[in-house]
């Protein structure tokens, strides 16, 4: 599904190398987790994959179903099936959540040459999906993320994911700022989307999210590289011993 080969990235503004050759392959239907200390390059990886400005790819490639996505505009990547659940979802005053969702769904459909969703069909689907995430009608009416609590913002991300039905989902520290109940709600939302063909890359500091979203593969990232890859037990090892041992081992 997603193949990242020797990806090297630096900041555009300053001459600082963030990713120093990342190799990673996520197979269809699998859930991979990336764990790592602050500053290891986890969020940069998610931004570069989704096409945020400010980064310069200095080497390597990233393929989504065999297609090089690094040359694509962010909206083209989205239409190709890539989705980033933001660590800090952006507030957009003046744009209603429903308008936003409908515009996004139909823009992607149009880009893929599919028929746009009618407003009645859209309403029906969005209400149903919102309900399972405990997102009420009021939240759907409000401007995008404005005045939402941390938990509401994250649930809104998952609602977008559910509506857009991407093939490859990247979750950037989706657990940050969530209490246990909110995390469970979000994890349930994600788990409901797991299935044939849809892959996930879950970026997190802590093992606790992985109790709820069980990964197939766990990668440890440090200093711009994947330094270790293993099964779910690797997350537990980090939880018990921290990153220091692993980083030392690598060095």
């Amino acid at each position: 599904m997603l193949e990242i080969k020797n990806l090297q990235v630096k900041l555009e503004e300053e001459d600082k190398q963030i990713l120093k050759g990342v190799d990673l392959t996520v197979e269809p239907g699998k859930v991979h987790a990336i764990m790592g200390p602050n500053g290891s390059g986890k969020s940069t990886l998610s931004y570069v994959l989704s096409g945020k400005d400010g980064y310069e790819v200095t080497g390597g490639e990233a393929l989504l179903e065999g297609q090089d996505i690094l040359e694509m505009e962010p909206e083209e990547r989205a239409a190709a099936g890539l989705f980033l659940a933001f660590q800090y979802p952006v507030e957009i005053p003046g744009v209603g959540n429903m308008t936003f969702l409908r515009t996004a769904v139909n823009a992607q459909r149009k880009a893929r040459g599919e028929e746009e969703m009618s407003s009645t069909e859209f309403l029906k689907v969005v209400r149903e999906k919102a309900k399972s995430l405990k997102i009420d009608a009021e939240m759907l009416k409000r401007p995008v993320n404005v005045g939402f609590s941390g938990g509401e913002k994250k649930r809104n991300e998952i609602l977008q994911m559910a509506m857009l039905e991407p093939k490859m989902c990247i979750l950037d520290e989706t657990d940050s700022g969530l209490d246990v109940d909110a995390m469970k709600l979000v994890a349930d939302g994600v788990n409901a989307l797991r299935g044939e063909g849809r892959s996930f890359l879950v970026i997190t500091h802590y093992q606790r999210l992985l109790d709820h979203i069980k990964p197939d593969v766990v990668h440890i990232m440090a200093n711009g590289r994947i330094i270790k890859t293993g099964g779910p037990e690797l997350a537990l090892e980090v939880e018990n011993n921290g990153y220091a041992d692993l980083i030392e081992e690598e060095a």
Partner: protein
Amino acid sequence: MALPQVKQTATDARLAALSLPEGGWSRPAREAALARVQAMGLPGARDEYWKYTRPDTLTAVEAPSAAVLNVTDEAPVFGERDRLKVVFVDGVFSAEDSDDLALEGLTIERLSEASDIHWAKDLYGTLEANGQSPVERPLAALNTAFATDGLLIRVTGKVAKPLHLLYRHEDDSSDAILHHVVKVEEGGDVTVLESGPAAARFNKVMEVDVADGAGFHHIRVQGRDHERRAATHIFGRLGTESTFKTFTLTVNGVLTRNECVLELTGDDAVCHVAGACMGDGDFHHDDTVFITHDAVNCESRKVFKKVLRNGATGVFQGKILVKPDAQKTDGYQISQSLLLDDDSQFLAKPELEIYADDVACSHGSTSGAIDEDGLFYLRARGVPRGIAEDLLTIAFIAEAVQEVEDEGIQEEINELVAAWLGRRRG
């Protein structure tokens, strides 16, 4: 005090080219207004409130010509709604194009035809004259003196449908001076819609007296003809527990100066003045708004948003004056511009002058580009860049557009804005 020579010369030249209408009952008010113009002189570039907007084409003897724009790709504004339509062609009332001027709760007469004994006698030029202090507005006095047409509107009840003043421009060199007077009597409530290009050069004054408990709602769309020049003034006086709301959308225009001068004279009155404008290239748009609080527990709100690109200029001069006895005043003033490129500019002069001690007044002014984080967020969800920018632009002006109470009109305004955004991409 003698006027500076340059100003004296310009004023003399302009006045020499105009003749005072007979005016009947309005004649004394016109003569008094003429005396005001002679004393003040017409605006000059050195005047405090004309620093950011060049007045020369507004005061010149000849109106610079403006090509008539025939819009064929857009439905007429407010055209779909049930309203009483009054049409002016190049500043002249057209009975032929207008509806029958009869509506329950409303009497309408033409300024140029009104009989000698008239209610408007006490109002015509009065609010304009009051509005000359502390800031002079000579173009408004010039208007009172020389207006050739306009409506005298008396509102005695709640009017069921809006009054739509539709201005048409058919002559490239028309120079129109219109003066409307609106008197909303106790318990009365009216909505006045205005649209259309009016003339190559348009000087318009609207004096609005809102009695105790009465309501006045005003929604205006200026555009799309780019070459016209307009100087407009609204003078309003608000009684106890009255409401005054005005919103203007301006799309294009090489020079537009919209002044609004309101005085809250009765307790618990509410006034909202809002505007949004969309400008491209040599667009120049100036909102000059002056609100005086002279009563207890009144609310005033000013919300102005300007979208500028390709070197367009936006000006905002806004003042809230709170007099010593105007306790419990709630004043809010925001002016913001969205600069779609580095060539455009926004010049803002927000002022507060407060003499009462128990008031809440705030003002803010910002200039900025499209929010990059918001843009990326939308694009990351698959919304193409152009559509995302349009969405964010419409979102930017939303706070102003939401001042319009009628949701149908809000939608119509958003459609006009979306159409403007669409056109600029060719």
